[in-house]
């Protein structure tokens, strides 16, 4: 019973309910939302976002952040595109591009972990640096011709269906990430490090290694997102994908990963990305322009992250009002003082529930 209750009250279940609501409302307003064509377009538009979010999620779980993913995406995408346009074998060009992405992630990890610098500042800096290097390589030019294999990875469907191939690939990555995060020692240590770095260190976890690996994975998946970008949009230019950063982080946070680290699940991130994609698609179909969709994402973030603590404090207030005796008792023992400190804690425990 407790387990059922836990499942029903979980963050992911809440996201699923929200998603279903959006689908029902959206479908009743415009019947095209669940059409196979619209779903296909929506999936193609959001697959890069999901790929970035899957990489950033473990970083945020350990209490760090990686803003440089869009820089890595642009740099590896530009390098791959440039090498391919110079006639290099596709496989080799992709390998080099992904290798560069790995190195980008490793540089972030080494700077943040070994020099003990704030991740926000470092990745803010490397975001500019990586994007800048991609500018140096291509200048203001764009590459628009790619080998067929790359294009079909990005935009073709599974044979006989209307399911885009890249969506399947990213979902496979999601499954792999879910396995790594939730079923391996490294995954368990992520949450320990995110919960308390010191406690994790004292329990014998190689904190530095765990954190560096998260940055390397984040870099690698950003590079892969760059490859998908080439196939999806058939264009490589400096600064590509820059607008994907905030939506990707939004998906991670909405997915139940605490911004302070220590909580969250990969399925939650995937559901959150689907939720965001469907919301934007539904709004777009109903005639809301881009800014309306952007604002809706902002409001959704506020509601999702802000409502549970608000509901909790409202419930506490209600209980206190109807149990005056308890209030007096706690006031005498000085427990009410803990109320304000406890509310900060409530934010963290939200995602755990």
């Amino acid at each position, binding site marked *: 019973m407790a387990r059922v209750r836990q499942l029903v009250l979980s963050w992911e279940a809440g996201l699923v309910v929200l998603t279903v609501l959006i689908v029902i409302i959206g479908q009743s307003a415009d019947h095209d939302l669940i059409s196979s064509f619209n779903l296909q377009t929506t999936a193609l538009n959001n697959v890069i976002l999901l790929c970035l979010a899957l990489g950033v999620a473990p970083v945020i779980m350990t209490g760090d952040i990686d803003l440089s993913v869009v820089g890595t995406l642009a740099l590896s995408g530009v390098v791959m595109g440039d090498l391919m346009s110079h006639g290099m074998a596709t496989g080799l060009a992709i390998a080099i591009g992904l290798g560069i992405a790995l190195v980008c992630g490793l540089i972030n990890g080494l700077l943040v972990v070994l020099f003990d610098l*704030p991740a926000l500042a470092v990745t803010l800096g490397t975001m500019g640096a990586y994007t800048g290097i991609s500018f140096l390589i291509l200048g203001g030019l764009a590459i628009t011709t790619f080998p067929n294999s790359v294009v079909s990875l990005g935009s073709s469907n599974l044979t006989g269906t209307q399911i885009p191939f890249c969506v399947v690939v990213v979902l496979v990555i999601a499954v792999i990430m879910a396995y790594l995060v939730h079923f391996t020692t490294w995954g368990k240590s992520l949450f320990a490090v995110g919960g308390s770095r010191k406690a994790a260190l004292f329990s014998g976890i190689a904190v530095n290694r765990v954190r560096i690996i998260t940055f390397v994975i984040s870099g690698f998946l950003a590079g892969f997102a760059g490859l998908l970008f080439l196939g999806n949009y058939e264009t490589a230019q400096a600064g590509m994908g820059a607008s994907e950063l905030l939506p990707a982080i939004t998906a991670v946070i909405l997915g139940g990963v605490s911004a302070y680290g220590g909580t969250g699940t990969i399925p939650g991130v995937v559901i959150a990305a689907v939720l965001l994609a469907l919301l934007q698609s539904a709004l777009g179909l109903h005639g809301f322009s881009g*800014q309306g969709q952007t604002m809706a994402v902002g409001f959704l973030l506020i509601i999702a992250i802000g409502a549970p603590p608000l509901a909790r404090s409202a419930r506490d207030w209600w209980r206190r009002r109807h149990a005056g005796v308890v209030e007096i008792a706690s006031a005498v023992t000085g427990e009410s003082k803990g109320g304000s400190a406890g509310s900060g804690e409530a934010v963290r425990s939200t995602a755990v529930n």
Partner: protein
Amino acid sequence: MSTSELISDVASRPARRGRVSTLVRRSDTALIALIVLITLVATATLSDFRTLSNINNLLNTTALIAIVAIGEAVVILARQIDLSVGAILGICAYLVGSWSGHVSGPFGPVVGVLLALGLGAAFGLGNALLINVFKMPAIIATLATLSIYTGLQIIVNNGSQLYLTQVPKWLAGLRGNAWFGIGTFIWIAAIVLVVVTFILRRTRFGRDIYALGSNPDAAVYLGVKIRVRTYQIFALCGALAGLGGLLYTSQFGNVDATAGNGMNLTVIAAAVVGGVSLFGGAGTALSAVLGALLLGEIQNILELTRISIFAEQTLQGAAIVIAVAVYAVVSRRLRRPVRREAFLSEHPTIDPAAIDAIGGTTNG
């Protein structure tokens, strides 16, 4: 601890505080020295750099960034962050530019400035409201409002652009005007710098901000009203972003829906390069101004030398990483001997060489 030890501990404090203040002064002086060095080299080698119009242009752009960066620095000092300043700046640039045209006469500028500050503060209060009422971390709350304010900005603009000819004369001429040979932008930035420095150094508000940034939990137990301070901090940051919007209208002449895009990262970069710690509690308003000046100067020189306008982002990014690394290394090194000396003075019987022999574990 006996009474005499307590007294000696208290007596030794001024010396330590002197050390801390020299440390702050040293990081600022190092930055000033770097700026002066770059200026001298650029003046000597680039004929385009030393022209009056270029220096004016450089200082005007820097003043605009610096004003917004000072607001961001105050937020960062309190261990918060505001990612929405760019959008606030954009909205205020458009609204102030189009609304202040309705007020003519000598009160026009006053109304315009108050409008910019007030609008910006209102948006800042929106951020603080989310943080206080919904208990959201600042980075998420302002990430959400960045989306909302950007959307609002596009709705407000409604696809149109604001041109310099549509704004009142005083606003259009603000950039070109000068008092006593110094441009108005620089005066405004200087006034903001002096006022915020005074607030940070001499008022209870300022001390509370440093307390919150150094240790929020301890600050709350000391009686710092964290909710009230959060409202004030974000209102101040928003107001300065609004003022930045006013200058933006005058600086760039036309305001469209993308005004202020990318400003968020630039002002955070300026504050960080200037030496404001992202962990809160360390840095000054002057740090933000110096950071803005250094970044502005690098950008200006790159544009003049036409090495490549594309190298700009790389260098700016590298500057942030290097600055953060240098501050971390320097502050760690400077902190070490203080602790060691304190330990040795508390235990006069211990031979300093013995500590080195066991690997200096007291150095932390």
